[in-house]
């Protein structure tokens, strides 16, 4: 039974424009972490709102662990947690009171709750802040409190996090990323909506791209990088001579390593092609300090993907 099964899912806020338009997706989330990417207004948050049973789908179905988000919403709510981008904390109450209230609402037994609170507060580095009102906390500490709440109930097998490390300092980021990685190994599942490419690279193995209400790509990070962000651009500081261009062009073509663009740039398929190019340049006596290398990033790949669709 797939962890997530979406079939022909559509949703419109005004009945005319579709925020989600016939989405299909089925995955076991084998690595435990699925990232949903897409530009602003793509439909990411709408999708998460449907999966977390906040919104009711207007067409199609969505299932989590085989349970329907409409028919079985109560059961689903007991199995998932959500850390939204908005604050969603009682600002007048302390960190601990906020978490305790949520623990009670979740139905965590009283004898387990206090222990769990101590553990989770410690885990997120909130011990010295636990009795402060949320109103008095910095943005980063508020975010940590929100994350702590999402991790509070051990029965939540699937945790949705909207922009996990938004506003966190490097230490907060590290704590969160380590925890997500660790828990994903213990059988917990995570669905992250993010535009932080470093986060995607650090955490995700499986990614879904949404654009204008449709899933345009569902793939692994490795595959995505290979297709959209694996290229290496080598720029020569001086224009190459016609003889060198011809020699280089033949070499690249013969070995399927890439192609020459203009008079001073080589586009290589991947990193290994770059090492081969280096060897070739050394063999012909070219000064390799005269080149500038730029590897395509995930962001480049993301822009390339969206740009391709827009065209």
């Amino acid at each position, binding site marked *: 039974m797939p962890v997530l099964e979406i079939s022909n899912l559509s949703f419109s806020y005004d009945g005319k424009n579709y925020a989600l338009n016939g989405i299909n997706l089925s995955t076991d989330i084998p690595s435990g972490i699925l990232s949903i990417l897409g530009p602003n207004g793509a439909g990411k948050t709408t999708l998460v709102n449907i999966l*977390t*049973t*906040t*919104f*009711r789908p207007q067409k199609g179905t969505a299932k989590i662990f085989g349970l329907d988000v409409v028919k079985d919403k*109560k059961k689903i*709510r*007991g199995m998932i947690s*959500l850390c*939204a981008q*908005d*604050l*969603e*904390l*009682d*600002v*007048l*109450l302390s960190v601990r*009171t906020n978490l*305790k*209230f*949520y*623990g*009670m*609402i*979740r*139905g965590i*037994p*009283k004898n387990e709750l206090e222990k769990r609170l101590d553990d989770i507060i410690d885990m997120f580095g909130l011990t010295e802040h636990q009795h402060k*009102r949320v109103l008095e906390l910095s943005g980063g500490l508020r975010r940590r409190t929100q994350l702590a709440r999402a991790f509070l109930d051990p029965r939540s097998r699937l945790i949705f996090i909207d922009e996990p490390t938004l506003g966190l300092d490097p230490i907060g980021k590290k704590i969160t990323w380590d925890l997500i990685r660790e828990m994903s190994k213990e059988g917990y599942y995570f669905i992250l909506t993010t535009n932080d490419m470093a986060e995607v690279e650090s955490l995700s193995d499986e990614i879904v791209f949404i654009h204008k209400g449709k899933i345009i790509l569902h793939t692994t990070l490795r595959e995505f990088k290979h297709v959209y962000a694996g290229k290496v651009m080598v720029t020569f500081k001086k224009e190459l001579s016609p003889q060198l261009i011809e020699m280089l062009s033949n070499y690249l073509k013969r070995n399927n390593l890439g192609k020459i663009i203009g008079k001073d740039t080589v586009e290589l398929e991947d990193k290994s092609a770059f090492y081969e190019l280096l060897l070739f340049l050394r063999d012909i006596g070219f000064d390799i300090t005269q080149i500038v290398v730029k590897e395509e990033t995930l962001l480049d790949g993301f822009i390339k993907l969206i740009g391709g669709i827009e065209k």
Partner: protein
Amino acid sequence: MRLYGFIYREISLKKEAIGGFISQFVTPLMYFLFFAFSLSRTVNFEYHGNTISYLLYVLPGIIAIQIFYSYPIVSSTTFNDVRFGIIRTSLLGGGSLSGYILAKILVESSVVILVSLFLVFIGILFLKLSISLTALLQFITYLVISTMFWISVGIVTGVKIRGELTRNMIFTLLNLPIIFTAPVFYLEGSAPTWIQILGRINPLTYHVVGLRGILLLGGIPITFWAVSIVLGISLVILSIKLTSEVAPK
């Protein structure tokens, strides 16, 4: 446990806003000391054939005013609960809408009962108020019913009126007409006709008259109970209906 979660939160909010909690005690006393006392020497009242002290006559009305004041308190907390996504988070976390509203009613009613009993105690000590156990039980029940009404009004306005300034303006505009078209400080039926007409559509009038009947006459007619219960329950149902619009579907 889940209902207790909502109750725990409401109590925690009261503890955090201790100033507001104290003012719920002090405000009716202020009305009593400064407003009612200043008039007590100049006005004599005959109420249902008995001459009673003005202060005793006013006491149930002041209790009704502090019930009415639970409306802006609840309106403000509900507004924040919608704004900060607390309702959404609680419901997605497994809580229910009825639990959320019930906790508000239980905690706020408890505060109202506490303050009211304190005022009744003052009445017994200083104003020769005598009340039977049956009347006391009726009084507490009626407090809960009328508090239910005003808390629901607070929830409805907190959910529906999304501008904080608009909400404050409405309360400021309604505050005096609601208090002064209800016969809190003057004899029932003695106000000018237009005030009496407004008074008839003012729910606080019924709460003042009801509480006064129970405290000073020992009871109220069954029709009065019926109207008050129907009003209270209707508003609770309306508040659940309207809050469900901002809750996860």
